[in-house]
């Protein structure tokens, strides 16, 4: 078997393993999908009308809530990566000539799959709450592209954070900044209405261009600048996450 096809086979085996983990522990996917739904209901029905966002709140907030659907599931990934690293099973894989990247790829792809479920739930929920979009099929594809790129980048960064964590418990905490970051972006409320300092942070942090580009696409008014910035951020984060996890993986015995 060639090296590439062995790596692909191993990654597929690892993905199947991670997928079984998710099915055995459905709470993780429940958590990833349920929390954003709760937040959606709270903001749309409780706080939303208090914010003046210049359009119907559910339409404003949906792109940001999609992001939350991505980030909320990440702690499960970090915990599961850290469990692998700390519970000895990874040493078994290492002494077995399993392709080096397979363990990591398995986690990344499994995360993206469970994330897609959460994102689909949130989008379905948004429609149920009255979300309507003038977006064309092409706009939708663009939005999905950016969402997938974001999920990919977030998954690699999370795998790296899980790898670096000392215990599974602390691994769950390392992704909390990632979960909080969308709140300090234009996800829930426009950055322009935030206080000095927070506003600048919101404007320059990666989630804002990601959310704004998805928002533009779903509103039928795509913005090339935001999309380029969003994809650049995703690429950068994914590369950092990938290199960091590879390095940690080979370092930790």
């Amino acid at each position, binding site marked *: 078997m060639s090296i590439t096809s062995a790596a692909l086979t191993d990654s597929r*085996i690892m993905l199947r393993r991670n997928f079984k983990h998710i099915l055995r522990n459905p709470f993780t996917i429940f958590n990833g999908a349920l929390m954003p739904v709760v937040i959606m209901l709270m903001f749309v029905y409780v706080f939303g009308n208090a914010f003046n966002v210049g359009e119907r709140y559910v339409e404003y907030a949906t792109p940001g809530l999609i992001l939350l659907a991505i980030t909320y599931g990440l702690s499960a990934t970090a915990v599961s990566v850290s469990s692998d690293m700390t519970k000895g099973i990874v040493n078994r894989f290492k002494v*077995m000539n399993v392709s080096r990247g397979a363990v990591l790829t398995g986690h990344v792809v499994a995360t993206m799959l469970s994330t897609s479920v959460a994102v689909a739930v949130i989008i379905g929920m948004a429609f149920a709450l009255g979300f309507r979009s003038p977006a064309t099929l092409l706009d939708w594809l663009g939005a999905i592209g950016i969402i997938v790129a974001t999920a990919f980048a977030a998954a690699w960064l999370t795998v790296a954070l899980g790898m670096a964590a000392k215990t599974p418990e602390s691994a769950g905490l390392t992704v909390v900044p990632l979960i909080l970051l969308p709140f300090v972006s234009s996800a829930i409320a426009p950055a322009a209405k935030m206080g000095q300092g927070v506003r600048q942070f919101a404007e320059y942090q990666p989630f804002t261009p990601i959310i704004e580009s998805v928002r533009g696409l779903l509103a039928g008014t795509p913005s090339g600048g935001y999309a380029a910035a969003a994809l650049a951020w995703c690429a950068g984060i994914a590369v950092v996450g990938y290199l960091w996890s590879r390095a940690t993986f080979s370092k930790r*015995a």
Partner: protein
Amino acid sequence: MTCSKPGGTPCQGFVSAARQGRVRGGGDGGCMRNTAIAVSGLRKAFGDKIVLDGIDLDVHEGTVFSLLGPNGAGKTTTVNVLTTLMKADSGRARVAGHDVATHAKEVRAVIGVTGQFSAVDELLTGRENLQLMADLHHLRADEGKRVVTSLLERFDLAESAQKMAATYSGGTRRKLDLAMTLVTTPQIIFLDEPTTGLDPRSRRTMWNIIRELVSDGVTVFLTTQYLEEADQLADRIAVLDQGRLVAEGTPDELKRQVPGSHVRLRFTDAVALDAAARVLNGSTVDDASLTLQVPSDAGAKSLRALLDRLDEHSVDVEEFSVHTPDLDDVFLALTGHASTEAIAQ
């Protein structure tokens, strides 16, 4: 996998494969045996803490070699280096003729490792864990299934095969762990403290499994904290203390260096103690605890003779116990300090 019952014929495929391509003879008293593991001058430090301080080992094919030592002696580090998980700072280690530092892939192809911390996937069932190993070894589907089923039977795991490994007891988990190592037929198996934390019954089961492996012709590198375990299983024992080998030899050679077994007698008062001390030659008196230590081979015959003698002189014994040398005795005899001190330092 050609499993054989103890005393049956070892797997032919393995023996011929193991005999090929290696010329270094062990010269073990005329019995031609090849070297499975050769280690010289192995050193490893973590920061300024020296963990391995120049280790030399020579393990012959088809034998059980036991590395005996307390916690912190460097046993796991040695295993990690030999199994390519960790790089040594200096020294050479060859496993099945391959250098572990430069030919890790070749080494991994012929070894099996069951580490100190059970390396099973807790969220998978026993069967799924074994299937995962079969898949990762790229076995054909039908062959993988056959191997998995036969291992479940051989290790008495069939009943719990459909249960998640997280629900397994410590002993069952270790069995599954070892079964996962045996999905392919490794030439050399590393067992890092395979019975630590197991109850006596599971320990016996594990010993029997290890003996079966050896009768199949596998080389076993075993680390343990228990002298009894090394004594039961190993052809050769090396005693590791603070990163240095302090003794090496057959179990008998090693035990000759250690104070033999003895009988300890406790009495209700000093009068009885003195009476007994007069009757039993070569005994050591401990006035404070009212005990008497008598060298003995711990055999039934000599014990009966000893008790008869006390009876003849009407000496009442409050408590009677037989002590065989344990790791602490070995350490005291070989290093002049107890094994617990090794941890403290």
